[in-house]
Structure formats: C-alpha cells, structure tokens
C-alpha cells in the first residue's frame, strides 16, 4: 500500500484553510474570483478522468456543467431545495447524462467521440431554450435564500462549498489514478485493442470514467445559478467551459492528478486577472493561445517540463 497520509493531510488542510478564509474578513471580490478558479479545478479534474487517463477528448464539458446548473434551478424553483440537495441531484443527473452519452458514443474513437460530445451540448442547450419553466431563451432571475449561520455572505459560503467539491473531485481522480481502474484507463489510452486482448473490461471502464467525469462536472455547475443569481442557456452551455476544461489539464499535465489542479489554478487566476484588467474576449484568447502553445511545445504540460528540468539537473551534476 502506498503512503496515503500526506495526501489526506493536504486535503484536510485545504478544506480547513478554505473555511478559515471564508470566515475571515477578506475582500468580497477575493471570494467572487476564487470561486471561479475552484470551479475550474473541479471541471479540469473531471475532464482529466476521461480525457487524460483514457485519452478520450471530451468537448462536451459545457453540456454536463449546464445540465447540472439547470437541475439545481429546477429543484430550487420547484421545492426550494437546499444547496447540498441541489448539488447531489445535479451530480446524479449529469452522471446519468454521462452514462447515456458514453453508451451512445464510446464505440466511437478520436474525433468522432469529440464531435458527438459537441452535439450533446447543442441538443441540451436547445432543449433548455425551449423549456418555459426554466425561463426559456431569456433565462430566469433567482432570489438567493438567506445565508447560513457562520458565513457573512452567500458568496463566501459558495466559496467554501466549492473548495470542498474541489477536494472531493481531486480525491476521486487520485483514487482512480492509483487504483486498477486508472491502470485500465491508461491501457485504453495506449492501445485499446491490446487492452481488450489482455482482458481489460474496456467498455465498462470507459462508461465508468464518463459517468464519474459527468457527475463531477454537474456538481460544479450546480453552484453556478446561485453564484450568478441568474441562469440563461447561452452562458450556461458556453463552449468556453469546454475549451477551458480541456486546456487546463493540457497545460498542467494530463498524466497526474496534480496536473489539472496546477493548470486550473494558473490559467484560472490569469483569466480572472485578464477579465478584470483587460476584457473578457482577451481572456478566451489567452486560453486558446496557451492551449496551442503547450500542445505544440510542451506536450506533457508543466509537470512534464518540471520532470525534464529535474532530469537535466541530475544529469548535469
């Protein structure tokens, strides 16, 4: 058995730190921005389970994210469900969508799978545009419920919730990575035929990865409507989520659970700074350019660069 305690200590410390910061007197804008960065940690980590480990490029992050958000809205509107219930239900529905998408498309390889996931986004978006109950094309304004006790504002609470979600997502990704599931997924990435021949249950593993990945993306989306106090189809199903969730693991490194986290924190922070100081368009441009630069120049991401640096230092000694 590997030594696990440093990871769990780190996870507990992260949650404790987030709670402490959430209760401290830090600037409200800090929470507003950090929430988005943490949300991308969840999305990037979720993407990496299927994209990084198994090598199936999912362009459909926005579909799972958006359906998670809309599930939360429906529950909130219909029953006034509390946030925790919204998140759990969103994870369940998005997981189901992931399972369905996987069932329909995982026989497809490479670009065919990727294009099919783009199709899922547009079909879900069209369905929501035509559903009056959730506001149709114009969207719907949501009134936040009163904030729970120890927190000063709703944004602070959402920040802590998202930090917990991020830790859960990373723990799940890490568990998958070090267990036999991760070995199976890596075998699929390297050669699906060979894996199948050696008795790896490829279809089951891919379905599992697709479901878990979708569920985590949905959970991340569930907090979005309350964060914005508003929901509309175009911004919930924006392809920008897809390209960010794909770019972050690619930039950080796809083979280790730490890669998406590094990528999301770096790129997410840069995005926040650029959005505030320059403009939202430049922010998407930064994602696109960094994605292309890394894919071309550093195929193994920042983690790959670090590994190479370590190797260089050792061999020069």
């Amino acid at each position, binding site marked *: 058995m590997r030594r696990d305690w440093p990871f769990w200590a780190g996870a507990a410390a992260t949650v404790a730190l987030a709670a402490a910061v959430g209760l401290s007197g830090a600037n409200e804008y800090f929470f507003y921005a950090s929430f988005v960065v943490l949300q991308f940690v969840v999305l990037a980590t979720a993407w990496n389970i299927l*994209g990084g480990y198994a*090598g199936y*490029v999912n*362009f459909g992050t926005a579909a799972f994210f958006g359906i998670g958000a809309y599930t939360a809205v429906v529950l909130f509107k219909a029953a006034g469900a509390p946030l925790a219930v919204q998140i759990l239900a969103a994870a369940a529905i998005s997981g189901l969508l992931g399972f369905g998408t996987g069932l*329909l*498309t995982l*026989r*497809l390889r*490479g*670009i*065919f799978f*990727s*294009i*099919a996931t*783009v*199709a*899922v986004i*547009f*079909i879900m*978006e*069209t*369905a929501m*545009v*035509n559903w009056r109950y959730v506001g149709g*094309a114009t969207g719907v304004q949501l009134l936040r419920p009163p904030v729970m006790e120890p927190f000063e504002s709703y944004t602070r609470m959402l920040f802590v919730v998202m930090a917990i979600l991020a830790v859960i997502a990373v723990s799940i990704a890490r568990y998958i990575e070090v267990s036999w599931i991760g070995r199976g997924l890596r075998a699929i990435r390297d050669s699906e035929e060979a894996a199948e021949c050696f008795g790896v249950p490829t279809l089951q593993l891919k379905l599992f990865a697709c479901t878990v990945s979708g569920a985590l993306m949905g959970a991340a989306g569930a907090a979005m409507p309350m964060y914005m106090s508003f929901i509309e189809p175009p911004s919930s199903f924006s*392809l920008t989520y897809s*390209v960010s969730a*794909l*770019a972050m693991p*690619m930039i950080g490194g796809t083979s280790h659970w730490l890669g998406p986290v590094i990528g999301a924190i770096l790129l997410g922070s840069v995005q926040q700074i650029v959005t505030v100081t320059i403009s939202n*368009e*430049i922010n*998407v*441009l930064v*994602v*696109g*350019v960094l*994605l*292309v630069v890394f*894919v*071309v120049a550093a*195929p193994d991401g920042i983690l790959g660069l670090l590994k190479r640096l370590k190797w260089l230092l050792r061999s020069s000694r």
Partner: protein
Amino acid sequence: MAFSFELLLEAILFGVLLGCFYAAVSIGLSVSFGLLDVPHVAHPAIMVLGSYCTYLLNRYGLDPIVAGIALMPLFFILGVAIYRFYYETFEKRGSEAGVRGLAFFFGLAFIIEVGLILVFGVDQRMVEAAYIGRSLALGEFRIPWRMVVAFGVALVLTAALTIYLSRTFTGRAIKAVAQDEPALRLMGANPVRIKQWAFGIATGVTALAGAMLIVVGPVEPSLDRVYIGRTFAVVVLAGLGSMTGTLAAGLILGISESIVLMQFGASWAPAVAFGLLLVVLGIRPQGLFGR
C-alpha cells in the same frame, strides 16, 4: 401548427436550396477530414474568417462571390501552412497525435473566433449586392435571390471538385493517399506533399464557402459553433470523403432542418444537425455512402 401540403412543399423547396448550400460549406471538410483524416475542428472558424474577408472586400464594392473567388489563392496558402505545421508538430510524432491534434484545432478555432471579435466586434455583419434583399417569384412561392445565388455557386463548386478529384492526375493522387498511404510511399510518391496540396485546396474552397455564408445571411464571429454540427453532420452522413455523398447528405440536412423550422419554429432548428449527427454516429458511423 396545422399540417398543410403547400407548406410542406415550400419547406422542401427551401430545404433543397439550403441543402446545396450546406453541401458546399462542408465540401472543404469532406476533403480535409474525410479524405485526409485531419481532425479539422477549425474548419467552420476558417469559413467564418472567409466571410469576414469577403465583408472587407465588399466594402470596396467588390461582389461577394467574386471576392470569395479572389480570396481562394490566399486561403490555399493558409491551408498549406496549417497542414505543414500540423504535420511537423503532430502527425510526424505519431502515437498521441490524436488527442493533441484535436486540442490544437479546437484552440485554433477559438483563436480565430476571438481574433474576429477583437477586430470586428460581436455585431452581425452583412454584405451588399444587387441580388440581396430581392426575391424570385416562382408561382405562388417567393424565393430569396440570395439563396438562389448560393445554390448555383454551391452546385458549380461541388461539381468542379468532384470532377477534379476523379478526372485529374493530382485529384486521383489525393484519393490514392486517402486509400492507402504506405502503398503510395512504395510507389515513390511523397504523400505529405500531396496531402499539403489537398489541404490547401480544401481551405481555398472554404474561402468561397465563407463568401456564400455571408451572402445567405448576416455573420457574427461565434457562428462557427453551430456550423461545427452542420459541417460534421454532412461529412459523416456522407461517408467520409464521398463528394456525391456530401451533396446528398447536405440535401438531407437542409430538408430536415427546413421542415423542423416550419413546423416547430426557429428555436429548434440548431438541434437538427447535431441530432442527425448523433443518430448517424450511433447507428451507422460509416455514413450512407461509406467506403
């Protein structure tokens, strides 16, 4: 809405015009993705780029279709450059080219889209020409001239490319690369040069497709997103790389989209292409006319 035969006929007529247009915007992808196996997700973005270049030339009084033809050599060079870069950085390295190549083209599409937003803003742009804004009265139906023009250009373009690929020496070489690359290498030909040429032609054709796109309707930078669905639906439904199949698939998409548009309204139309794509991928991934 009540069903009426007249309305259905009108929908089919409009769908045929629309379908030929869809075939024309997909034919570049049919070469680059269908024949060359390049995961060219940026194809619609390059097409929208073509529309904006057409818009610029049109402001100096050039007819949009003429502008599109004038842009073709420029886009040919662009295509050659893109393929060369793709080959050197991904195809040559082999193994994991799939994932990274896809990410590369996805990123490229976003760079083009945001670049257009930064230069032109998010507003819709349109072109001016004598045939835009008027319609052709055909019995009791009225058909906008802009659709008729796009229909004509689309037919000529599709026919020209089909003849080029089946009758000329280089055209046949392109098909040979698609069928069996190692064999071509054994015959002493250089597959990379042929693919580079083919990708250039595919991109050049896309410039004209972009001109038609802005003739048919106003264009905005994010229009490429919905065309990812339309173009890939047509190419996959056609069976990769079949030119006549592309025309047939375009017609199927155009007619179904037009019927949905009339029966259920415009808000359902974007889902038609994507739904069709999912159904084809799920049931018959090799397409209707698969090789």
